Each structure stands twice: as structure tokens, then as C-alpha cells.
């Protein structure tokens, strides 16, 4: 019983990190029609940026803030300006290919110019465990859940309660009508890119302490984010959360009760199940066939 609770909590914590990356992924798709195959690298880069900051003797929180600013500039506005804007006219596929190329370039730059080793990032949370009634939960898991939860709730509140947030949702649902309503579509799309970049930094801060910062760490995170988004429903932000947490929890359960070797296959099996039984995703809405 204790094992199970522990597995569920730490699985949810890991899943929450996947969900952050998946959330940005979904937002990009909705608002800008971008499938970003470099999403995992968008998490890897800030992890190394923070490592660099720490190497200069900065405290974790300051390194995090600087990484956020850098990410917003480079992975948010820069990515949009340099890669997405010139390519979006050509349709989805060339952009997918370009982000694939970008992922390889970013990964290889880190490996060739920095390091091919795995580096631990100090955890922002205290070490040790909280024990209640014989059940042990690590502070890191609790902190991860709290921070990821706060970010998600804050983001949802922003999207639903503020004028800007609602304008962003309008753009995501229907760009044309949003434009007719007088919404500054370009600005809203830019905001989505900035939010995606910052979400990636948070995911990096949370995942690198346990899973280590390595040039190819993005392969796994990117894939999970990708599948989490489809499992939950590509056109629903809540879907990304559900998909991420589901993958995180099931990976932990499979790893413990079945075989750690097949942990990585969980996301795929879930995905195949979903496309067979509920192709629009668990929370997604079916789109009517367009002529």
C-alpha cells in the first residue's frame, strides 16, 4: 500500500513535468499550427543555461530567472521570428522538418561545444522525505507537484480570466474570427511562444535534478510531451495535463510491477490504445471532416 501511494505521488510529479512540456506543445499547435519537434531540446537548453549560471556562482532562483528571460528571447521570440514565420506559409510538414533539423543542431551544439556528459542540477527543493503513517513522500516530489500545479492553475486562470488570455484562446480556436473581432493576432501568437518557452524552463528546473541534464535528454521528454498531448486530445489544454500525468503514473507502475525495461514503452502503448478507441484523444473534441 505504501509502495503504491509513493509510486502514485512520484509518478504524478514526473507526469506534471511532462504535462508542462505537453501544455506548451498544445498551445503552439492551437495558436500557431506548429508541431514543434524541438520541444524536448527547448527543455534541455534552459537546463544547461541554469547549469552555466550556477557555475558562475549564481543562486538557483536567479539562474532560473535569467534562464526564463533568455528562453523567452531565444526559444520564444527568436524561434518564432527566425524559423516559424518564414515557414508557416508552406504548411505543416516543412516546419516539422525544420524543427527536426533545429533539434539536431541544438543537441549537437551542446555536445560538441559544452559536454557529452550528464550533469546533475541541484534541486530547488530540500532533500529528505515526509513520512505520514508509514508512507514516505520526498520533498522533491511535493515541491514539483506544488510548483507545476501552481503554474498550471495560474496559466488556466490567465487564459480564462484575463482579457489577454481570452483573446489568446479566441486566436487558438479560430484565427480568422479573432482577427475580425479586432484582436491583435500576431501579438497573441507571440505571447504563446513566450509562454511555451517559460514553461520549458520550469520543466527543465524540475526534471534536471532527478533525470540529469544531458545533450540528448530532450529525446525522451519531447516524445513524452508529444504523446501526452495526443493522448489527452490535441485541441484541449486540459488534455495535455491529463495525458502527461497518465503517462507519468503508468510509467512508474509499469516500472515497478512489470519491468523497468519497458517503462519507456508506456507512452506508446497508451497512445496506440487511444487512437484505436478514442482517436480525438481522451478530452478532445472530434473535428468534422473538412471538404
Amino acid at each position: 500500500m505504501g509502495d503504491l501511494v509513493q509510486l502514485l505521488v512520484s509518478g504524478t510529479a514526473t507526469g506534471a513535468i511532462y504535462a508542462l512540456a505537453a501544455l506548451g506543445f498544445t498551445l503552439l499547435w492551437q495558436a500557431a499550427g506548429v508541431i514543434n519537434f524541438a520541444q524536448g531540446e527547448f527543455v534541455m537548453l534552459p537546463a544547461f543555461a541554469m547549469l552555466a549560471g550556477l557555475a558562475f556562482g549564481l543562486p538557483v532562483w536567479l539562474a532560473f530567472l535569467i534562464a526564463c528571460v533568455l528562453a523567452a528571447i531565444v526559444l520564444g521570440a527568436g524561434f518564432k521570428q527566425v524559423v516559424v514565420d518564414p515557414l508557416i506559409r508552406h504548411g505543416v510538414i516543412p516546419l516539422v522538418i525544420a524543427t527536426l533539423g533545429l533539434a539536431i543542431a541544438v543537441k549537437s551544439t551542446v555536445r560538441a561545444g559544452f559536454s557529452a556528459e550528464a550533469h546533475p542540477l541541484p534541486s530547488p527543493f530540500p532533500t529528505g522525505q515526509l513520512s505520514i503513517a508509514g508512507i514516505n513522500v520526498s520533498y522533491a516530489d511535493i515541491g514539483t507537484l506544488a510548483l507545476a500545479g501552481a503554474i498550471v492553475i495560474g496559466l488556466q486562470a490567465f487564459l480564462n480570466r484575463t482579457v489577454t488570455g481570452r483573446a489568446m484562446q479566441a486566436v487558438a480556436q479560430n484565427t480568422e474570427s479573432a482577427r475580425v473581432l479586432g484582436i491583435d493576432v500576431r501579438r497573441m501568437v507571440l505571447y504563446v511562444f513566450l509562454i511555451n518557452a517559460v514553461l520549458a524552463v520550469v520543466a527543465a528546473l524540475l526534471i534536471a535534478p532527478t533525470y540529469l541534464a544531458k545533450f540528448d535528454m530532450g529525446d525522451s521528454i519531447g516524445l513524452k510531451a508529444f504523446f501526452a498531448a495526443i493522448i489527452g486530445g490535441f485541441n484541449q489544454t486540459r488534455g495535455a495535463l491529463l495525458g502527461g500525468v497518465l503517462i507519468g503514473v503508468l510509467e512508474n507502475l509499469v516500472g515497478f510491477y512489470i519491468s523497468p525495461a519497458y517503462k519507456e514503452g508506456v507512452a506508446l502503448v497508451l497512445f496506440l490504445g487511444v487512437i484505436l478507441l478514442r482517436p480525438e484523444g481522451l478530452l478532445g473534441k472530434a473535428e468534422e471532416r473538412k471538404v
Partner: protein
Amino acid sequence: MSAPARRAAMLVAIVAALAIGAAFLKRSDVYLLTLTMVYLMATFGLNLTVGYAGQMSLGQAAFFGIGAYVAAIALKAGVPFLAVMPIAAVACFVIGLALGFPALRVQHHYLAFATLGFNVLVYLILRNEEQVTGGTYGISAIPRPTILGVSFEGHLAYFHFTLASLVALGALLWWLLRSPWGRAFAALRDNPIRAESLGVNITAYTLLAFAIGAACAGVGGVYYASLVEFIEPGPFHFSTSLMMLLAVIIGGSGRFYGPVVGTIIIILLPELLRGSSHEALKFMQKWYLVFFGLAVVALMVWLPGGIVSLADRFRRRSTS
């Protein structure tokens, strides 16, 4: 000479030059050329799926791996090479159908996601099912073929064998693309909705294009296993699939010789750089993938038709 005749003559000249020239090359260079041709079998197949039928497949390395492991196990068990090849091709074809069917039933772009996930799963199985695949230790001492008493054990003999097989596979694909099937593939790539309204069974053709592409990768895998003589899961990771896809696209998807250019860029050039002792080239080797990745981005922005489409551009400029 007419254009097709000129092209055929050029092809014969290139193949002949390769066949003869290889005798004067270093052993390691012959190996690299053979390796490139082996990958080319897989990327030729992928070009059929991606370039001619317009489907995104991100799992070509999984089929390449299935072919290689089937070959490794069967060849070591004494099954003759000429029997192993069709077994691997049919296995990959059938697995391709089984994988493609549920994905295509839903929506056509789900094939990309399904193949990507499939590749992850195949990689896990190769790594973990030690009794069958040898796990991370892989399978070693894979024999090279002896056919009708002729041994292709030597590096040059195996090179010629692979070259002949590649030409045969290319001819087969050429014939397929010129058949009504090839036309149906192009129709569903260009406009699936119109194709369906004209009686083209788009699900069936998409599945076939995908499964035939997979079968080509399986055949490539057989030649790969016999070439390297030792296989382990590493080369069949999904990152290889992504590289194969990029090879097809940067070469020029939907152009018959596009994969040749692309495969040289992803396989032959980096290996040549690695083997070089020159200081500047060593630097290039280290940063090769960085340049490659950036070049892919730049190519998508400025030359979405791939490198082979450059020829068209020049031709158009000179005629206009």
C-alpha cells in the same frame, strides 16, 4: 540522344565506374560505400512512402532493424541468404500493414506518430529481449552470403553483390512508380479528397505505399547485418529514422535520385570526416551535425524541394 536515354546511359556509366573503381579503393572506403548503399535501400523505400505517397513515416529504422535481426538470426541458423531476404521483406511488409491500419483508419497524419512510437517499442524489445536479440550485447559473427557456390565473403565481392542488389531494387521501384500504382500514389499525395472521389481507395494505397517502403528497409537491414557482421540495438534508435527522413527530404522527396544525395550526406560524409586525420576535417566532424541541422532549417526556408531540385532551378534560369 533523348533525355531518358541520356539518363539511362549516365546511370550505367556511374554504376560501371563504381563497380570498377571500388577495386582501387582502400578497404575501409569500400566498406563505407557498401554501408551507404545499404542505407540507400531503406531511404529509397522511405522516398516511396514520403515523397511519392505523401505519408510521414518516422519509423524506417525500426524496419531496418527488424530486417537486420531477422537476417542475423536466420543466417546464423543456416538459412540461405536468398531465402532470408524475402522473409525479412515480407515480415516488414506485414508488420507495416498491421501498424499502418489502425493509424490510417483514424487520420492520415497519425501514421507519423504511430511509426515514431513503434520505433521506440522495437528499440526497447531489441534491447531487452536478450534470449532472442542478445540485448545490448547484440548478435555477432553474422555470416556473409554464399550463393550458388560463389562466396561474397570478401569486402569487394560483397560490395559488388550489394551494388547489383541495389540496382535491382531501384529498377523494381522505378517499375512500380511507372505502373498505375505509382500514379495512384502521386494522386493521393497531391489531393487525397479528389483521389477518393475518382475511385482511388486511398486507405489501401496509403497502406501499400507504407508497407512497401517498410519492406525495402527490411531488405536493407538484411544487407546491413551481413555487412557489419555484428549488430546491436544502437543503430535502430528512432533518431536514425529521423535522419533517414531528413535524408529523403533534403535530397528531394518525390525525386527518384533524391535519397542518393541525402544518404551520402547523412552516412558517407560524416564517416569520411571521422576517418580523416586532417585537423580541420576533425573539427568539421565534431560540428558536422550542427551544420547539418542548421542546413536543414535553411533548406526548408529557401529550397523546400531539396537539393536535387537545384538542377531544375538552374535549368529554368538558363531557359528563361
